[in-house]
């Protein structure tokens, strides 16, 4: 900005090196080693290993086990993981989904996205100390979770998407619950909007460049907030029939991600509502046996944090030879060390939270 340089370079100062996480009020599940020059981060290193569970190895024990584990890959998006795995098995067996099952899957994936995004908004608002917005988002999150529980049971035990379709039909009161959340959201949009001070904190924070994000393998809202129209749902027949258009942000910073999340919550709830309206008749599931078919297949689902994929290799036996899961969080964590350089220490929790990392999913 200024032509004249302040004569600070001549004064010898030392860097302060500190750990940040894993047991930190704002950063959990990963450890950052921050090198601080004043209060400004001059280098950030990420250490993983706090959430590794060896899921992929465990999934090789049997098909039942693999299906259960798929919904544990990202504990905050169990249905997206289950959907990716189900699609992989369906691809192996070359099975087709019934129209009804496909629509029901859309409903639950979108509801899950809405709930996850609302939790993200509540967390970011909490870190911003925007308490009314945090409370509002938290309230909406609980309503969305209640609607989700109507479909798939209590959190933590949710398994509803199965290879071949879905485990059960949607209960009659789901649509009503969904409309209730949507109405509540419409009434709350003003309260969720950022005020000027919050906007100034988020402006330019954790700025992701679209090209670099693609190069690193970023996905989901982090990528879409840079304006790159990458969304698995665009290539889906069912979504296209429901009038889906990806929401895009511009700027790629935390502020863009905040607006994008707010917009995607509304979009997700609307899509879920449309998906449940005038459901085509038909079975919700047909048996898709994984045993007896050999080969390698991959299934994808657009989760709340981006593309989740499951790869299954089998010789047709009683257990899969290899199951691999992949999500965007590792790439996002990789971006983090670049993003933090130059930001103020007080902004680090915000920057980390704005990427919506799921370390469970990153480390599997």
């Amino acid at each position: 900005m200024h032509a004249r340089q302040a004569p600070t370079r001549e004064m010898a100062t030392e860097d302060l090196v500190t750990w940040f996480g894993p047991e930190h009020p704002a950063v959990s599940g990963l450890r950052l080693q921050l090198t601080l020059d004043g209060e400004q981060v001059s280098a950030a290193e990420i250490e993983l290993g706090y959430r590794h569970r060896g899921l992929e190895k465990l999934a090789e024990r049997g098909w039942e086990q693999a299906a259960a584990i798929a919904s544990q890959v990202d504990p905050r998006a169990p249905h997206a993981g289950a959907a990716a795995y189900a699609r992989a098995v369906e691809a192996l067996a070359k099975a087709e989904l019934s129209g009804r099952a496909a629509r029901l899957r859309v409903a639950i994936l979108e509801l899950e996205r809405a709930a996850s995004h609302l939790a993200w908004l509540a967390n970011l608002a909490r870190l911003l100390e925007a308490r009314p917005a945090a409370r509002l988002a938290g309230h909406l999150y609980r309503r969305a979770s209640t609607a989700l529980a109507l479909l798939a049971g209590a959190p933590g035990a949710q398994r509803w998407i199965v290879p071949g379709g879905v485990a059960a039909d949607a209960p009659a009161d789901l649509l009503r619950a969904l409309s209730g959340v949507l109405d509540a959201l419409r009434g709350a949009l003003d309260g969720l909007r950022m005020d000027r001070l919050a906007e100034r904190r988020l402006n330019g924070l954790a700025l992701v460049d679209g090209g670099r994000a693609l190069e690193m393998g970023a996905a989901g809202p982090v990528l879409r907030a840079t304006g790159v129209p990458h969304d698995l749902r665009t290539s889906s027949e069912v979504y296209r029939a429901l009038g889906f258009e990806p929401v895009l942000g511009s700027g790629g910073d935390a502020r863009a991600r905040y607006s994008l999340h707010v917009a995607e919550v509304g979009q997700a709830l609307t899509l879920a509502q449309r998906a449940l309206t005038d459901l085509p008749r038909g079975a919700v599931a047909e048996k898709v046996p994984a045993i007896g078919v050999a080969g390698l297949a991959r299934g994808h689902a657009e989760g709340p944090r981006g593309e989740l994929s499951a790869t299954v290799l089998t010789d047709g036996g009683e257990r899969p030879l290899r199951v691999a899961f992949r999500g965007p969080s590792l790439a996002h964590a990789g971006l983090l060390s670049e993003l933090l350089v130059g930001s103020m220490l007080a902004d680090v929790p915000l920057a980390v939270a704005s990427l919506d990392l799921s370390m469970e999913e990153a480390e599997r």
Partner: protein
Amino acid sequence: MDPGAALVGLFGTLAVLVVATWLAAVLDGLGRALAVHQPVGLAALAAAPLARLGRLVRRADVIPANADGGLLWSAPVMAVAVVLLLAGVVPLGPGLVIADLNIGLFYVIVLLAPFVVALMNAGWGANAKYGVLGAFRAAGHLLAYEVPFGFAAIGAPMAAESLSLVKIVEGQDRLWYGVWQPVGFAIYLVSAAIITYRPPFDLPAADDLGGGVLADVSGPRYLLLRGSMLALWVLVSALGAVLFLGGWLGPLLPGPVWLVLKTAALMLAMSWVGYRLPRLRVDQMLGLSWKVLLPGTFLHIAITGVVILLQTGG
């Protein structure tokens, strides 16, 4: 004042301070609940600080390894001493003041600075990363509050022709200074929030540092420091009432009641507004102080001067 009266004054002041600190904790909770539109039970709000007090008294005092013991001790001692010294000059009612100094306002401004040092010592002395970072944020507070605070408060002695807090109150018998010095009053309140580490200026003890200067403070030591911070908030608010809202002046009710009401109103307003705002980074706080508050005080002094000149016909 004979020694007996001084002792009565001392224990009276201590009792008032303890009750005032409890009230500050309640008002803090009430303002927070109002700011987030949370339904509140007054009984629960009133009981929460007492429960906290009970826990803190029983908890052990942890002294971090390799800490600077002297600095660590100095922090609560300085904080409590500053609070008591300030409480001695706040006039509660006509004749109800421990020490009516002829340099009262100046004395207050001088004494506020050591409080910052107390918090810095707590952070630096702990020999912990987050404490050290918090200490440097606390030092930033000193640079942010003091000049606007002093320049905002100067309107009162200009009008009252005295630095004595009693004379300043007596000078407002016709009109409160806050009414015709709104700019100074507003700037006073913002800088008061900075010096007392009220949200949104609570960065030295913020979550991103796991509690910052208070991260490694526990038990009775925490009680003393946190209690002093709350008590300081009461005192600076009471001083705001003295400087801008006519102190104890008011109809019907006795003087001290008026002062308590005005002080509580100011505290509730500060708490409510503060909790609605996102926390400010140190650079944002310093920017606010030097680019908005300080130029604002120049305007305040100029307007106050013109009004006084017009009034006296000089």
